[in-house]
């Protein structure tokens, strides 16, 4: 059980926030990794919507590989929340925490921050520490 990292993208594909906990393979180039991640999500989303019997419900919630699980949540405004955990945390319950991160961390500490300009990178200490403590409190951490 482990949580590796968190990504937040806006609708244009800009990475608003990246935070990592215990990942053993470090990143060579963070911006490359974020672009690849967004590209993969974009392809994955199109793919899964197309295969869905009901196109309105075809958005992926999570996937599991042999090493990790990726949890995905998107808002109607196009924000994409991604949490990467170890592969044994692959369940819908973990994905639901992303909704809470949106409501309790992003809305409270980024959107309600008067200095925050929408679409810019979020590097407020308060936001990051709340995110950190929220994720550390998860049962799968």
């Amino acid at each position, binding site marked *: 059980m482990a949580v*590796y*990292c968190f990504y937040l993208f806006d609708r244009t594909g800009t990475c608003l926030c990246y935070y*990592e906990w215990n*990942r*053993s*393979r470090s990143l060579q180039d963070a911006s490359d*990794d974020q672009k*690849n*991640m967004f*590209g*993969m999500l974009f*392809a*994955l989303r*199109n*793919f*899964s919507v*197309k*295969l*869905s*019997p*009901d*196109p309105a*419900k*075809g*958005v*992926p*919630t*999570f*996937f*599991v*590989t*042999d*090493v*990790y699980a990726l949890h995905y949540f998107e808002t109607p405004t196009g924000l994409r929340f991604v949490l*990467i955990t*170890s592969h044994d945390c*692959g369940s*819908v319950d973990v994905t639901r925490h992303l909704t809470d991160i949106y409501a309790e961390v992003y809305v409270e500490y980024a959107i309600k921050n008067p200095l925050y300009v929408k679409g810019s990178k979020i590097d407020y200490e308060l936001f990051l520490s709340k995110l950190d403590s929220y994720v550390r409190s998860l049962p799968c951490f």
Partner: protein
Amino acid sequence: MGLQYLFVINKAGSLIFDRRLSENAPQLSPNDCLHLASTFHGMQLLVQQLSPEPSDHGFGIVTLETESYVLQAYRPETGVQFFVTADLKTENLAAFLRDVYVIYADYVMKNPFYELDMPIKVDRWEAHLKRLVDKYNNRVNV
């Protein structure tokens, strides 16, 4: 509950077999199927690259879940990829794909007229696949 779609992709990423297994499944044109198969192949490479931990085997996605269906993928050592979509809460999809692989090995690979990496048009494979799908769907619906 039941199976929806089965795809088989060769190691170069092109579609060699697709089959709609249920009335619930979306209607896909042959072009869509080709497109989906190559997207899946490309995505698998990215998924492995994005891994936060080093991987020993390098499977990509094994299970994918959405709000309306699940997808299970299986890649044996030869690089062929099988993936199946099914209604939510369908169980034993991994076992189903393994059975599909067994009949693939028996009736496609052992067919002397089958050329490697070409689309599969083998009657006995289709017949056995149909039997397997029926058996599986019956077991799921009981």
